[in-house]
């Protein structure tokens, strides 16, 4: 299985705003987190939603984000986090890194 990222890699979520169906929540776009695990390879829900087969499969990751990085005035503990499943085509290395 080929996957671009491995657990521990920092990743930034693309700031795209498609008009069609997508499963990357608005609140996380443009945010940077860390790969927590590779979930596997799955068909693309953005295509499945229109009756297409969603192939080829692509890597799905669980990405962990610090709450204090997402919300400017987050009131909870500083190590609070959000884990979200995000597809590889929505992720890129953070600006100052190469992969």
């Amino acid at each position, binding site marked *: 299985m080929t996957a671009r990222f491995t657990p521990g890699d920092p990743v930034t979520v693309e700031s795209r705003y498609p008009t069609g169906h997508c*499963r990357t929540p608005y609140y996380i776009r443009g945010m940077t987190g860390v790969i927590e695990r590779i*979930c596997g390879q799955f068909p693309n829900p953005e295509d499945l939603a229109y009756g297409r087969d969603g192939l080829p499969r692509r890597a*799905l990751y669980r990405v962990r984000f610090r709450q204090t990085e997402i919300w400017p005035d987050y*009131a*909870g*503990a500083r190590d609070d986090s959000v884990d*979200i499943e995000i597809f590889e085509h929505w992720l890129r290395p953070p600006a100052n890194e190469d992969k």
Partner: protein
Amino acid sequence: MSEHTHEPGDQRHTAVEQVEPHGYYQYLADAVRQLLIEKNVFSADDMRRAIEAMDARTPAQGARVIARTWVDPAYKVRLLADGSAAVEELGIDMGTTKLVVVENTPTVHNIIVCTLCSCYPRMLLGVPPSWYKSREYRSRVVREPRAVLAEFGTKLSDDVDVRVHDSTADMRYLVLPMRPTGTGEIGEEELAALVTRDTMVGVAQVRMTA
């Protein structure tokens, strides 16, 4: 002469339906159901079986999994490695669900949401409660989980990290709550009786008195 198709199980429900107003969407549901049956897409019997299966899925199933995990360390290892496979060991059908079990510890508290719709481990817990599907829960729990937890009566110190899981894709999540202290002498069935739906979604912690 009425064209209305009568199906098994209708009798006990028809009386209630006729008393209450039948909105457009109920008519739409009836129309779609009848047409699909007439076109042999599925049968009335298939419908009845699907509803029976749905009714049989309750949080008691999830509670059995949690109790087994508390008493059997080897099972716990398997559950955390592959949630669906471990649940199926107990005779619970998980279908195509890919279950990820997330463990609460003295320093980490997990809570589950689907901000985009209402994804939920239905094969294990049954249908989600209304609040889980509500605008208020879906909007706020990723932003201020501790405030939402407090509304459910769950207060956590800053020594505990709150970890929110937003189910956006194919995985479904189940919280493995901590076993309460003082339950060392209690058998597996009694332990299961302490585990509520809310503790497996992560809005509550398991208490000695359920």
